[in-house]
């Protein structure tokens, strides 16, 4: 049977792999997806489960070295800020009327 330390190490490894996977997928999406509005969805994965996985790994790892929860702060920051970035980029793209597979709405970005 695995002891706690080993289990924790497995957990860390698992979380790292999960994080890596979504980070990579986010980047692949960034390259593969055909138009800007669709590409806008890519970083969300990196932000949420990508970094989230890493942070969980870090928290799990720190259990052995005196618990630290400051990683949660990073998550908080990311969750507050990422939607803002995405929205601003979307607004900009709408104003510039970038090429889009989805039909663009009539009156772009006039709202507040």
């Amino acid at each position, binding site marked *: 049977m695995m002891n706690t330390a080993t289990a924790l*190490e497995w957990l860390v490894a698992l979380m790292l792999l999960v994080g890596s996977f979504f980070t990579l997928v986010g980047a692949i999406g960034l390259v593969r997806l055909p138009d800007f509005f669709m590409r806008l969805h890519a970083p969300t994965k990196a932000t949420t489960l990508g970094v989230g996985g890493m942070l969980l790994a870090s928290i799990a790892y720190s259990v052995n070295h005196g618990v630290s929860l400051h990683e949660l702060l990073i998550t908080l920051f990311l969750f507050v800020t990422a939607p803002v970035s995405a929205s601003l980029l979307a607004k900009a793209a709408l104003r510039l009327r970038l090429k889009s597979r989805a039909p663009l709405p009539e009156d772009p970005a006039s709202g507040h």
Partner: protein
Amino acid sequence: MLNLAINIAFCAIGLAMLLCLVRLVRGPDAADRILALDTLYINAIALLIVLGIRMASAVYFEAALLIALMGFVATVALARYLERGNIME
């Protein structure tokens, strides 16, 4: 085990960064470049966290925290600029 995972993570993040770079260079629009940079910041956070795990050191944490904060500012500034031609009024 853990080392393997860490190395895989490094490779994945590295690859992700290169992909971001491809988008960054290729564009085609400024918005794409900002998006790529934003993603690059996120990747950098991930990278620093993994580095912290590997070095068993907490000194990388602040860097990650700052990227989260500062990367946001950069992205906002860029996007604002793109949208309005200036970033403050």
